[in-house]
């Protein structure tokens, strides 16, 4: 059993213990039932009066009344505990994901994480609830029943127990097979979910390239494989239940044969024979259930293993043990000999860059040069491979993550908005929903004019990822979200790429007043976005190749000047010649 699952169960040991006691008690009581039957049958054979019979009948009802009460609480307590465990695991799972670093999500498929949180967890709950409940229930009932039977007639009992080894062998052989095969079923299920998830998310591309038939074929292929794996589990676990019924039947047969002889030879009474039959009947259901339970437990353990795989992933970006709570004083940023590599491939190389508090630095450079990687180091989306990034003179890894990020307004290159109202989205990083600040932020990012045209204004509900907005509106909403938290450091990663130049101009003008006292890093491919920066850094292939102001860089006639020239319209150059 997974130690993690065990620890959850131990956390509820009181419930399980009480449940267990109730279960034992009710089982013991139930086992009295055949005794009463025996007494009744024997006394019927002995021609006893109706009063005694009524007494027995009453006794039977009384026993079951008690059993009824005990079993009610037994189920309530154990099943309740298993649901609480499910709740705790799901919460812990979410909390665990919340601590995981960006790279983990980049390498894990959402559909897979979903399957584990929903389908696998469900299976685990079933093994921790009905599974454990019936497992122990069966074992206790069997022991008590065997005890009773032994006390009547040891020989007959031993005869009947010949089926026990068969039962054990069945479980030992089939159990692990179910476990393995079920695991592969769940893996395939994850694949199917992830496939569906991606297809639905990328439906526009699917349609634009008329990919529907291929997608359907692929989905069919995955599903065929899923059926195949499912049937391979069914082949095994389908045998459990009939086998258990067979074993019970076998015991009844032995009883009929050996017991019948025993009655004839007078070793036991007919009543005792009936009593034996009663025990078998009582055991029949639990034994059949045992087949089901073993199946359940094996599946549960397989699923728990899959959950454990997620839990076993350690968050790579965490507070250092000596992390200090810090209030950001100035917002000065310094890169000291920073290098970053992804799986050995160098993306940034020995970057030295000091951004004084309050300054605006622009980063330009070719696609894939490492710009996003560079700024991602500041809020610790990644950590450096070498060197250090300092804020206010303190290595970012020594900051408390929450403190660090609280002071940063980040506009990522890929806009992600939530399917909520526009207001909630802009206020996403604010401690309180202050309507005034939301509108101010929307004003700065020039979203306010668009919002005025929306029939529901700030209460407009966005589609998932914000699909019901235009590309530029989404980007501006993301800018508003970053600005609204009033950060000391503002990072715009190509955040104006889908915005037209006149809106961009307005945003930059407004931002400049906001940025006067803040540190800002702006990444862009457009000269118009970066030219007013205090310092422009040109990044190429992971290295800083130029730095300086717009004019200085133009004068150097390097990469930046080249970029500048290229952005001029060709004819414009001609025109400029003509004009001057």
């Amino acid at each position, binding site marked *: 059993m997974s130690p993690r699952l065990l620890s959850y169960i131990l956390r509820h040991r009181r419930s399980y213990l009480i449940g267990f006691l109730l279960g034992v008690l009710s089982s013991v009581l139930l086992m009295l039932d055949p005794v009463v039957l025996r007494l009744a049958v024997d006394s019927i054979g002995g021609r006893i009066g109706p009063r005694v019979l009524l007494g027995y009948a009453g006794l039977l009802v009384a026993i079951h009344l008690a059993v*009824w009460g005990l079993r009610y609480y037994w189920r309530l307590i154990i099943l309740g505990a298993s649901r609480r465990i499910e709740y705790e695991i799901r919460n812990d799972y979410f909390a665990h994901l919340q601590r995981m670093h960006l790279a983990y999500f980049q390498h894990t*498929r959402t559909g897979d994480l979903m399957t584990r949180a929903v389908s696998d967890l469900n299976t685990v709950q079933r093994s921790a609830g009905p599974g454990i409940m019936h497992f122990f229930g069966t074992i206790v009932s069997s022991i008590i029943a065997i005890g009773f039977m032994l006390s009547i007639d040891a020989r007959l009992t031993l005869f009947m127990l010949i089926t026990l080894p068969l039962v054990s062998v069945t479980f030992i052989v089939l159990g692990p097979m179910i476990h393995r095969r079920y695991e592969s079923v769940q893996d395939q299920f994850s694949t199917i979910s992830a496939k569906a998830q991606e297809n639905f998310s990328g439906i526009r591309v699917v349609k634009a390239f008329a990919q529907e038939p291929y997608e359907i074929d692929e989905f069919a292929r995955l599903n065929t494989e899923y*059926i195949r794996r499912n049937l391979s589990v069914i082949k095994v676990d389908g045998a459990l239940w009939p086998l258990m019924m067979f074993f019970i039947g076998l015991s009844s047969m032995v009883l*009929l044969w050996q017991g019948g002889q025993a009655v004839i030879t007078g070793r036991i009474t007919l009543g005792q024979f009936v009593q034996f039959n009663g025990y078998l009947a009582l055991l029949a259901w639990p034994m059949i259930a045992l087949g089901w339970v073993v199946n359940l437990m094996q599946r549960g353990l397989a699923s728990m293993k899959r959950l454990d795989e997620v839990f076993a992933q350690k968050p790579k970006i965490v507070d250092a043990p000596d992390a200090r709570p810090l209030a950001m004083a100035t917002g000065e940023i310094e890169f000291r000999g920073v290098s970053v590599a992804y799986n050995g491939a160098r993306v940034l190389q020995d970057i030295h860059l000091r951004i004084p508090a309050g300054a605006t630095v622009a980063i330009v450079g070719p*696609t894939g040069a490492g710009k996003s990687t560079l700024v991602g180091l500041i809020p610790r989306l990644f950590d450096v491979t070498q060197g250090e990034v300092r804020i206010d003179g303190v290595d970012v890894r020594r900051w408390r993550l929450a403190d660090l990020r609280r002071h940063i307004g980040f506009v990522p290159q890929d806009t992600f908005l939530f399917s909520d109202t526009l207001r909630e989205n802009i206020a996403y990083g604010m401690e309180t929903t202050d309507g005034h600040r939301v509108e101010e932020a929307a004003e700065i990012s020039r979203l306010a004019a668009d919002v005025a045209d929306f029939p529901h204004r700030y209460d407009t509900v966005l*589609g998932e990822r914000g699909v019901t907005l235009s590309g530029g509106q989404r980007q501006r909403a993301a800018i508003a979200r970053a600005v609204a938290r009033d950060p000391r450091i503002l990072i715009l990663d190509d955040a104006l790429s889908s915005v037209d130049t006149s809106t961009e101009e307005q945003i930059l003008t407004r931002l400049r007043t906001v940025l006067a006292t803040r540190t800002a890093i702006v990444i862009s491919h457009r*000269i118009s976005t970066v030219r007013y920066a205090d310092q422009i850094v040109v990044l190429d292939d992971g290295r800083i190749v130029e730095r300086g102001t717009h004019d200085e860089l133009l004068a150097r006639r390097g990469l930046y000047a080249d970029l500048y020239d290229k952005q001029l319209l060709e004819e414009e150059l001609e025109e400029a010649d003509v004009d001057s």
Partner: protein
Amino acid sequence: MSTHFQEDEILGKAYDARLMRRLLRYVRPYRAVVLVSVLLLLLAAAADLVGPYFVKVAIDRYIRTGDLGGVARISVFYLLTLLAGVTVRYGQNYITQSVGQRVMYDLRMELFTHLQRLAVAFYTRNPVGRLMTRITNDIDALYEMVTSGVVTVFGDFFMLAGIIVAMLLLNWRLALVAFVVVPALVGMTVWFSVRSRESYRAIRIRIARINTYLNENIMGMPIAQLFNRERRNFARFDELNRDHLGSHLQAIRSFALFFPSVGFISAVATALLIWYGGGQVVQNAVTLGVLVAFIQYTERFFRPVQDLAEKYNILQSAMASSERIFRILDEPLSVADSVDPVPLARVRGEVEFSDVWFAYPAAEHAGGDGATPRPRTGEPPLPDGTDEWVLKGVSFHIRAGESVAFVGHTGAGKTSIINLITRFYDPQRGQVQVDGVDVRRYPQRDLRRHVGLVLQDVFLFSGTIASNIRLGNTEISDEEVARAAEFVNAHRFIERLPNGYATEVTERGSTLSAGQRQLIAFARAISHNPEILLVLDEATSSVDTETEILIQDALTKVLRGRTSSIIAHRLSTIQNVDRIIVIHKGRIVEAGTHRELLARGGIYTKLYQLQYRDQELRIPKPVAGAE
């Protein structure tokens, strides 16, 4: 944060003849197999039923008479029926499950196929988490119904009927005594069904909420972390999770009460038998064997009843699931192929919009804040379910072979125009024509196959770089893939990746830089080689200028003779087009060549000046100073 998408509160009746008929349609192809399965089941149940009868015969005929051989003989018979029982049961189980698997497969494929045909608008309205619930959990509920529902219900009923008949035949008086408790049993079962139905309803709604929330928040986790939302989002998740726990605890209560109650009622029946039946035995009206068999039958009687109650639940949740699945299957195709489509084999590339009015379907609003769309003067009334016109009487004509650029402020409606050309949406008024025929008359796939589209939102699938460029079209060779990549200047960076074109791409291409992703999406459009129409929606917005120029040079070569429409904010991107159309708030306000537009001094001039005017002023100085 709350979940704003409307919940699926449909839970359906436990049994709905219409739905059931429709569901059974899926079983019909396998009806022969199902029939075999039912027969096997009846056999297995019969094998079960004879057990107590053997005991009765053994007691009355052999044990009481002391016939040792008889006991042995009947034991052998018993063993044989047991062996038959186990084989039959295994076979029956396997057959049923495999039918269930097939039915589930058929249904899941039908659902997926239909989803592929549904319009983009449907996906805007439905969160992915919800669609995932349909294609996984809901289908599973139906699977359970087919395997442990439909078939075994027959078995249970047969078992019940068999037991009742056997008891009546053995001794009808005794049987009636045992049946005294049946009303209590029925009452209990009905109570349980009603209660559990409500619980199921509550649980389903809550699990769907958890799914949707989880899906969105896993995708947006980096944002949540950057914005310090962990604690608040956790509180929200905990709330949803706790709610889910609460409805389960509620459900457990009725379950915990039901099963022991059935046991108790069964004991009452046994007690009655002992009291009354015992008396009868004493009076020699009934043999002891009959009484014992009766007691065993009574015990067996209650098991199928318990089973049936559980089946009822399965049925109930399957009904709810099927209703939700059927609702998607019945979802009309808002963008459907015409009944007599015009095949589109070759395209010349002429595009014409005539007085096109277009509005997006309004989002579902949770609260309904009362704001009603205000039709403005001079505009046609808004169609139902829309909020505002996005395109207002747009008319233009792109000649075959012409290249046209759309510019305008963000949110002006440029992407919407493209959505109409490719028929992601249909306009409410007016007409969009390609080659002189309304696009609604072409089969959608034909139309799109001829359009090379680079969407504003890049989407990469998990797979490899090559598989993202060629998608499902295996006809596209490796060379063609590489050529397309070279074309957009992506070849260089792809070559440098550890496995080149076979490098693994993670979900949404998250380990590539944004520009690299865009280049791959561009290469994808190029490799699918649409003969004529190229539609680029900010296809190079995240790409550096140098690469962009290289792409442009390459494009001008291909673009010769091809129609293209390009959206871009960087004006340098569109410097080579034949005509520029300026969109403002859903209307065309200017159109013409770069020079013509500059001469007009309108919106375009302003956009242009902002990008270049003060640069121009600066050019001479530093350049002159440097040289």
